[in-house]
């Protein structure tokens, strides 16, 4: 299996030995390179996802979806992006200016920080903390600040209601998401994402962990969905009630930030689910079938990772385009009365099972 370490260490060598740079400059250049690569990937993934969502949503609804710009409408998203970049940013007269312009950056930074910590393929991992899971949980909840600030600073009643809903929703569902991931941490015995992936070499957790892992997986998907504010949990936006919720007053690239963040968050949730439950970039290995395992190993690790992500994303789209939106009390009931008790029981059971 191709290890991306080869590429990264070659670059490192090139800078240190061939060009003879000292440690500071090597690291500086490497950081910039990583940053640029991640930014590009971030934008690219958002574009691909927007296209995928529009197409798949259309197919669920017996429509064709975008098919005018480019073959099968492939350039549509790029055209939309150009449009959104060139649109005017409208400052709202009675808004809280500083916070109003700051809010989208919170959202985008929150999701970008999480994005950086994902293991995309074997050896393709920007930051590999030993507390990776904790880090991901911490930074991914930064986004809620941006949303609440947006709602507050817009000085718009719809936005405020949307932001309040977002606050209640995101804080609640953080608990279930965290508990579900903790279940897997208990199984893996580590919080480091690379270790978690490595420990799934002989079978993904969703298979190894049995019913516990399955329950945790489902709970994580639901909670993750809720955290990304996507249907059926799109209460903060709830188009038919609050027109556009917290980002009603945003336009141009400011709105674009929310839009892009929404889709990359979807990707991030799927990527975390992939890493924690579906073995990350680890190919499908069945113990005992060596021939089969070898064939699986020929498929590049990035393909495995993105394929699994695509599967999770498809699940998310499928659910989104089938169900109506929950009401705020139903939403909180679902979390506090169903998901949280179940995940608490689940984590306790896993702990017991692992100790035995």
């Amino acid at each position: 299996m191709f290890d991306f370490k080869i590429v990264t260490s070659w670059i490192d060598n090139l800078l240190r030995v061939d060009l003879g740079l000292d440690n500071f400059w090597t690291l500086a250049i490497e950081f910039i390179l990583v940053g640029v690569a991640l930014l590009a990937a971030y934008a690219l993934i958002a574009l691909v996802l927007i296209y995928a969502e529009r197409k798949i949503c259309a197919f669920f609804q017996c429509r064709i979806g975008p098919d005018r710009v480019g073959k099968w409408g492939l350039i549509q998203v790029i055209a939309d992006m150009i449009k959104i970049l060139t649109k005017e940013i409208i400052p709202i007269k009675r808004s809280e200016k500083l916070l109003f312009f700051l809010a989208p950056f919170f959202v985008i930074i929150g999701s970008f920080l999480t994005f950086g910590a994902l293991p995309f393929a074997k050896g393709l991992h920007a930051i590999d903390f030993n507390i990776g899971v904790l880090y991901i949980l911490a930074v991914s909840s930064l986004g809620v600040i941006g949303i609440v600030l947006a709602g507050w600073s817009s000085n718009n009643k719809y936005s405020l209601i949307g932001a309040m809903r977002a606050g209640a929703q995101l804080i609640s569902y953080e608990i279930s998401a965290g508990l579900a991931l903790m279940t897997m941490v208990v199984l893996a015995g580590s919080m480091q994402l690379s270790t978690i992936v490595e420990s799934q070499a002989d079978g993904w957790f969703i298979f190894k962990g049995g019913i516990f892992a399955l329950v945790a997986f489902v709970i994580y998907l639901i909670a993750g969905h809720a955290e990304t504010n996507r249907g059926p949990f799109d209460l903060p936006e709830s188009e038919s009630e609050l027109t556009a919720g917290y980002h009603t007053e945003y336009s141009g690239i400011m709105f674009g930030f929310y839009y892009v963040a929404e889709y990359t968050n979807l990707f991030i949730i799927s990527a975390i689910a992939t890493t924690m439950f579906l073995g990350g970039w680890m190919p499908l290995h069945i113990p005992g079938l060596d021939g089969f395992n070898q064939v699986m190993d020929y498929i590049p690790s990035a393909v495995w990772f993105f394929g699994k992500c695509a599967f999770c994303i498809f699940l998310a789209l499928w659910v989104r385009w089938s169900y109506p939106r929950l009401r705020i009390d139903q939403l909180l009931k679902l979390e506090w009365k169903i998901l949280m008790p179940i995940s608490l029981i689940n984590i306790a059971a896993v702990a017991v099972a692992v100790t035995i």
Partner: protein
Amino acid sequence: MENLKEKIQAIAPSAVFEENTQVLTVDVDKNELHQLAENLKNDESLAFDYLQDIIGLDLGDALGVNYRLFSTKNNNQALVVKTKTDDRENPTLHSVSNLWQSANLYEREVYDFLGIKFIGHPDLRRLFLRPDWKGFPLRKDYDIESNPVTLKNESVEEFEGSEKLELDSNGHIKESNFQLFDDKDYVVSFGPQHPSTHGVLQLRVSLNGETVKHIDPNFGYIHRGIEKMCESYTYPKILHLCERLDYLSAAINRHGFCLCVEKALELEVPERAVYVRTIFDELTRIASHLLGWASMANDMGAITAFIYGMRDREKIMDIFEETAGGRLFTNYSVIGGLMQDIHPNFQKRVKEFIPYMRKMLKEYHTLFTNNPIAKQRMLSAGWLKIDDAISYGVTGPSGRASNWHNDIRKIEPYAAYNKVNFNEITRENGGSFDRYMVRLDEILESLSIIEQLIDNIPDGDYKAKTKPIIKLPEGEFYQRVENARGDFNIYINSKGDKTPYRVKFRSPSETLVSALEPTVKGEKIADLIMIGGSLDYVIPCIDR
């Protein structure tokens, strides 16, 4: 009947019964009106609990008001109470809004168009026109130039306050103003541009967190003055205006107007036309209920369900287009019959559509009705008790969900409805889910009506011969039809000309919106939108 007359005579000695009218009509003095109304409503043996409509008229020297009453407990006995006031400068009448909730909006409408002030009305604002509108447009002496169109950005007076007229102990009229909303209220405006108001309606809602405290609908954004236009149009020309009231029940409204004119002319319509009209009505009803279902699903966030509803509605639109040439506005019934004969493919297409629709309905139930999210949401909000439904005049599927048997196809069968077997769909509880289910069940019922008729369309003419210029005899004519939203009533007052003297349409949607207040109070914002979807009002029908 005689019994009823005697009782009315006893209560109101001034009562005069009119001869040769369609329904029992009584003229009373305006001072005895409230007394009579109170007795009509509260007396168990009379029990006129449903005020269908209040029709304001300019009688030339006086301003008149017709109250159209029905007794739901008493075999749907109908009664028209007429009164008038001679004072054109400062006309006043006693309000009946304390007896029937539906009178609240109707009296505001009469005040808006004819300037009659109702003493005791809790909230006497203009209903459709702006507060700074000059004059009262339905008066015959109204100067059409008195409100020139300006393109300036005028500052619109905030509709915060309202007027109230009361009688003090000496019998003098006392005017007082009051605030609609408290200064501390968190008032959110839904509409006029909002994805879920089903048209250009403004709902101002005061909130307590997510909970709705008070709701105030504001109409008139797309008021076109159709009733005023009708006064200068000949009868065939009015037909197309009827379609543009409730655009989702276009064919039914048009049919109703044709029926009213035919009744006045005592014109015999060929059987073939009667059958085809009935089929068209039922197809329209299905299309409208489908859209109602779809947009309710959309209001609850299920956009896919919305598209499915629209997709299947398209089949009906195609059937319409092939036979009538129009889609939303079929433009098919004319006075005396049909515009043209049915298309040779019509029967085949309809017969293909029936099994398809049945199959799709099952899918709808699996996709949306049984979805626990949707079901719990619908089952937990929006209750409307039967008494409230009658008092607010909530007719149609929404009223039947509260177990009020108000289907006009059963009460006063018109067209071919007495030739077919069908059930009046009613449900017990009057919740959002019941209103939702009544609609879907009515689609099935309509399919069975169409099934019974489609193979039995009799041969013969599709249109009766009419005179080139249609003149209605002098008199007042009423025709009720059951459109997709309920009791649609057409009132024509003719002076024998080729144009009517006064036309009034009773809009079922108007009462549906007024019923938001009792159903939504204390529920969440999300429920406000959902209940709005379950009531399924169409705004152009209100803003006539």
